């Protein structure tokens, strides 16, 4: 009996540490601060992109969209001479249906994994996206073709296949907590923690790694590349936080997860927004979200603060390392 109980955390401890549970998040944060009518802005990547362009928020370049089945044959025209590109469903979730092509050899398209696929396979993938295979509830969808992101060389060795991205939780325009998600062989190149990606908690003040976890267990080295994860430091950290914080002004959603990638040439870019960000970020940071969120809720002048003031506030109060 005692053994069974010891597998469960004491709820009083969790409350003391301010760890947020699913119900708490849904009722008190998502339900209260995210207006339902704004959801389509983040659930549809095309709309997010249009909105980002309008607000001068950097995003990967859109090469074109495919909206109908008969446009599928046009995709060669859309990609033109681009040797590398990325196909995404506009309403995909959890990284489903993303096809990244890193180079072309004659008629073959080479995927990030090195596997070559032909024209027919790409079209089939596009058809699947349009039919709603990857979208929530199987709704018909749109395929986006974007230019490929070249991730910053400082991340070399930190990620297996996929792009390492930075997830920043933004509450009322304040960056609250951040982590990097590094894909692994176990996660099949995807950045989802529950599929086996590595989560690295990031100090809000410095951009340095605080702690790394895979499958809830703390680790020190990347399982595939053996790189020391504690040496990780996100470059352009101030810009990353500023970009994340400005997503609140842009979307109007009070509680969002912003996924930011660092491009070698173009710097931090907004990849997508998530109106229902997950809770695993707490495990990666070894800290609960609630004390940070509650401090912001107690701030009387939060609505009148500028983006840079909000970022400064977050860095002053939510940092783990002092310098």
């Amino acid at each position, binding site marked *: 009996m005692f053994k069974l109980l010891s*597998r*469960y*955390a*004491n*709820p009083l*401890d*969790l409350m*003391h*540490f*301010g*760890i947020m*549970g*699913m*119900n*708490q998040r849904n*009722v*008190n944060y998502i339900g*209260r601060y995210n207006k339902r009518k704004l959801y389509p802005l983040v659930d549809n990547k095309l709309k997010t992109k249009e909105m980002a362009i309008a607000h001068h928020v950097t995003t990967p370049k859109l090469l074109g969209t495919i909206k109908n089945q008969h446009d599928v044959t046009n995709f060669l025209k859309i990609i033109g001479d681009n040797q590398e590109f990325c196909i995404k469903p506009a309403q995909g979730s959890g990284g*489903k249906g993303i096809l990244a092509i890193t180079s072309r050899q004659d008629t073959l398209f080479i995927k990030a994994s090195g596997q070559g696929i032909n024209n027919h396979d790409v079209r*089939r993938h596009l*058809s*699947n996206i349009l*039919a*709603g*295979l990857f979208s929530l509830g*199987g709704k018909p969808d749109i395929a986006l073709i974007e230019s490929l992101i070249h991730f910053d060389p400082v991340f070399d060795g930190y990620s297996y296949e996929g792009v390492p991205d930075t997830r920043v939780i933004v509450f009322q325009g304040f960056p609250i907590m951040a982590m990097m998600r590094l894909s692994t062989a176990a996660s099949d190149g995807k950045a989802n923690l529950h*599929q086996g990606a590595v989560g690295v908690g990031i100090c809000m*003040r*410095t*951009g340095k790694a605080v702690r790394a976890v895979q499958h*809830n*267990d*703390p680790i020190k080295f990347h399982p595939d590349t053996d790189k020391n994860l504690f040496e990780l430091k996100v470059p352009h*950290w*101030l810009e990353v936080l500023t970009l994340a914080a400005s997503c609140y002004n842009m979307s109007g959603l009070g509680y969002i997860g912003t996924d930011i990638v660092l491009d070698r040439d173009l710097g931090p870019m907004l990849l997508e927004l998530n109106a229902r960000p997950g809770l695993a970020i*707490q*495990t990666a940071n*070894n*800290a*609960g979200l*609630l*004390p*940070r969120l*509650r*401090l912001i809720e*107690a*701030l*009387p*002048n939060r609505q009148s603060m500028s983006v840079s003031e909000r970022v*400064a*506030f977050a*860095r*002053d*109060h939510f940092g*783990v390392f002092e*310098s």
Partner: protein
Amino acid sequence: MVSRGVFYVVTAILFVVGILFIGYQHVTFEIPFTPGQMRKVWTVEAKVEFEPTGSGAATVDLSLPAVQPGVTQLKQSTAGLGFGTTYIYHDDGASYVQWTKRNPAGLQTLYYRADFLMDDTAQDSSMTVPELKQNVEPEPYLTAMRSIAESALQRSSNPFSLAVQAISIINSNTEESTLLLSSYKKPELLVHILELAKIPSRIVGVLTLEDGRRNRNLSPRVAVFDGTQYEIFNPFTGDSGVGPNELIWNNHDGSILDIQGGTNAQVSFSIIKNSMSASEAGHLKVETMQASGKDVLSLSIDTLPIEEQSLFKSILLLPIGVLIVVFLRILIGIKTSGTFMPVLIAMAFLQTSLLVGLIGFVSIVCIGLIVRSWLSHLNLLLVARISAVIITVIVLIGAISIITYKIGLTEGIKVTFFPMIILSWTIERMSILWEEEGYREVLKQGGGSLFVAVCAFLAMNSEVIQHITFNFLGLQFVILALVLIMGNYTGFRLTELKRFKPLSQKIIEAHEQGVPYEADRLNAKRKELKANPHQTIKKWEEEHKLKEDPLNPQNESDK
């Protein structure tokens, strides 16, 4: 955003209304909270036979059964070939059924039939206090009666004990009683003696109820009054009260049967015992009350036609399944494939029985997944693929029905109760899940769904729950209130306690190594801020200026 206060008030109102409604139905309709309670219902048929005198019209008055405590009359009907029927209710409590016919010929038979519910809550009585008559019996009987009355009066303290004493003297073979009994019947004699003692009394007819008896007659009893109180005495034995299987038929001064234009009239009773479910009896009783003009609000499924009732029976169970899904998802955190798919599966289990349902469900989903994996190689469009899966599921269900029927397992036919579209979507979703997240997640969600379905089935299959949901509509309000309250739960799910165990452990370990809790630091800041917002913010701004920023653009470029 609706304020919390309003929310709690609305929820509380729903809850209270539900409970009150349940209470109302329990009290008014006497619906028990547990199923299977039966009530005794006696069907009594009075048969009246007479020969017409041959000259013109005949009128027959049969006294109607009395309203009395412990018994509720549910319905009555009459039959008589060519007779007109009227019910006559007099102010003095006497009531009759009157049959009339212009030219009866030959032996006439009339029937009156009524159902009586044995009902402890019935308190009404139609008995009226009789007028006290002057005893005008001839001598020597009067003297004998007076002597009995006087000795009974000496040995008694009130009208009832006086009646008991009088009965015992009458039955004691004294000279006087022998004399009196030679010309009086016992009940009649008792009434005359009581007249001398100035106690009003009356002879009433009582029918003893025994199952399957025919040609019964009323037996006479004497009702003795003390003011408006009365008690029934058996003049032959001196016993008081009415037995549990005795029915007072005739409780007024009139005769049981009056006939004009006929002779050789006689009435006899036959009796059948039925039992009826308590809720059915309750509804019949309310119907009778409504028929007699009492205002009773009837909001029950029982008023619908039978076919709709059986439909409602399953619809009203759904909220129970939904409640269980809400509980298991919000408080426990079990993952299911499709939110309410488990409830629909559980509904199908109700039709098939659990074991057959489980075997059928698992085999259909497994075969469906195999077919679906082959379909995914064909690169079909979504709608076509789902349609193909639906057709496959239907073929599978058909095949299972036929094969099991052929080998003699009639249970197998019931797989047709499975919701096919839901099954197809389940297969589709699980197949995608398999491709994307691996078989573990499929087993987890599939197992979770089945677990929830079995829980919902066990709840919905319980006879008590079926009885309560069907009979008490108020329960739906209570369930609604519970669901609303659970929708407001912001605490941890049971599975989250497990999920965050490593996290809480690491935080505690770090604390033991000297790292202060971040939560404590931030909570202290929050308190400071709340106590004095402006000064605190200013103080923080000062601190900010003093701090050296490692990310200063100049510093950054140095690196």
